[in-house]
């Protein structure tokens, strides 16, 4: 077992408890299924476990006490340029499995479960700015002092954008994958509702979930035969990565949907920015991403043809190559 020198172990850090530090294999069934059904229920301290087989020298699984005294879960893999991955609403670490396998050999990959996800407790402020502050808090606590290469997907991209606008010096590069435009969030409108309005909101949210699912299945079906995708495995990863406290889900909806100013002051972003879209994303309109480019200085766009909402899962080779070229070219 190798302990990253700059990270330390339990007792050496002020606020982070190390749950396990192992040669763990994220491709294992245990890793993929670890978070499923756990969020929002009483915390189970069962460690991820000790396994062999992953060609990355260390995995740290942490609970970090933030300045608000809430416990946030984080995982650290590998060694190299620091790469922070922020997932979309409701998903946890397994969704990034292909990036761990493809990038953690020469990057230090940090996955922070947003409040209310996985074993992370929820916090009061779940606005994008509030979540960004929590994530920065955790990264700092874990000793990530140098500027981070930040990757956010879906509303994780909105959080990443808020983070880059809030603390420009902490961000080396910014990659926004299928970022949710402010129009999409406004359409959900969450002001007070009568019963008919509540049913309509619920139906919108269920429809969104169905759309994301259908998007994933279509994406898997359309992948080229030599694309290296195991469709059954991708679905298993997607389904098992879902882990959100239902109360936190409502909090995210109330705090961010229907909010007119849900995109931060994008002209504050200083880092080079890559706007990456799956060109067949059914849930997020690629057009809103193209519009965002004109609002973020120093940004470029890239599309992955025939990819939907989860290009990092279904088009991992292409996704990882684009991301690696962008990050390592910084």
């Amino acid at each position, binding site marked *: 077992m190798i302990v990253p020198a700059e990270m330390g172990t339990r007792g050496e850090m002020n606020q982070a408890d190390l749950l396990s530090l192992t040669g763990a294999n994220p491709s294992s069934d245990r890793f993929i299924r670890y978070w499923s059904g756990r969020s929002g229920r009483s915390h189970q301290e069962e460690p991820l476990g000790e396994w062999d087989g992953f060609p990355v020298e260390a995995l740290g699984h942490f609970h970090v006490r933030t300045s608000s005294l809430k416990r946030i879960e984080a995982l650290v893999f590998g060694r190299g340029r620091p790469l922070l991955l922020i997932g979309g609403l409701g998903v946890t670490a397994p969704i990034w499995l292909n990036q761990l396998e493809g990038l953690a050999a020469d990057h230090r990959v940090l996955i922070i479960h947003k409040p209310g996800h996985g074993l992370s407790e929820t916090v009061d402020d779940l606005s994008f700015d509030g979540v960004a502050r929590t994530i920065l808090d955790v990264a700092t606590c874990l000793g990530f002092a140098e500027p981070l290469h930040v990757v956010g997907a879906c509303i994780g991209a909105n959080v990443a954008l808020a983070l880059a606008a809030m603390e420009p010096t902490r961000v080396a590069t910014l990659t926004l994958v299928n970022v949710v435009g402010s129009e999409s969030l406004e359409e959900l409108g969450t002001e007070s509702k009568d019963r008919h309005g*509540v*049913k309509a909101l619920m139906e919108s949210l269920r429809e969104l979930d169905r759309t994301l699912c259908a998007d994933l299945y279509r994406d898997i079906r359309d992948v080229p035969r030599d694309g290296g995708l195991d469709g059954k495995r991708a679905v298993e990863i997607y389904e098992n990565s879902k882990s959100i406290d239902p*109360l936190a889900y*409502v909090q995210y909806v109330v705090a961010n949907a229907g909010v007119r100013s849900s995109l931060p002051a994008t002209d504050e972003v200083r880092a080079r920015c890559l706007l990456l879209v799956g060109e067949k994303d059914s849930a997020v309109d690629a057009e809103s991403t193209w519009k965002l480019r004109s609002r973020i200085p120093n940004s470029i766009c890239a599309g992955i043809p025939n990819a939907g909402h989860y290009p990092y899962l279904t088009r991992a080779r292409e996704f990882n190559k684009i991301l690696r070229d962008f990050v390592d070219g910084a």
Partner: protein
Amino acid sequence: MTDTERRIIEIVSGCLELEGADRVIAAETRLVEDLHVESVQMIEILYIIASDFRVELDANRIGGLRTIEDMCRYVEERSPRADSA
């Protein structure tokens, strides 16, 4: 049992289509752990409570509404319609 508690139990049991809810749900019942409420069901429950009692949903407080009792307290602090009769 207060009127507020009775009404909130009715709403929760209605949303979850539970029969005999008064025997299943008590003040200390936890929505996620005990009743297995899922995300979109939680939206329905909280929005209907907000609508019925004419209270605003405060995003900063939602995370603390883990039990029926938590919900009663939240409503009673804010609603002119809630009472502790």
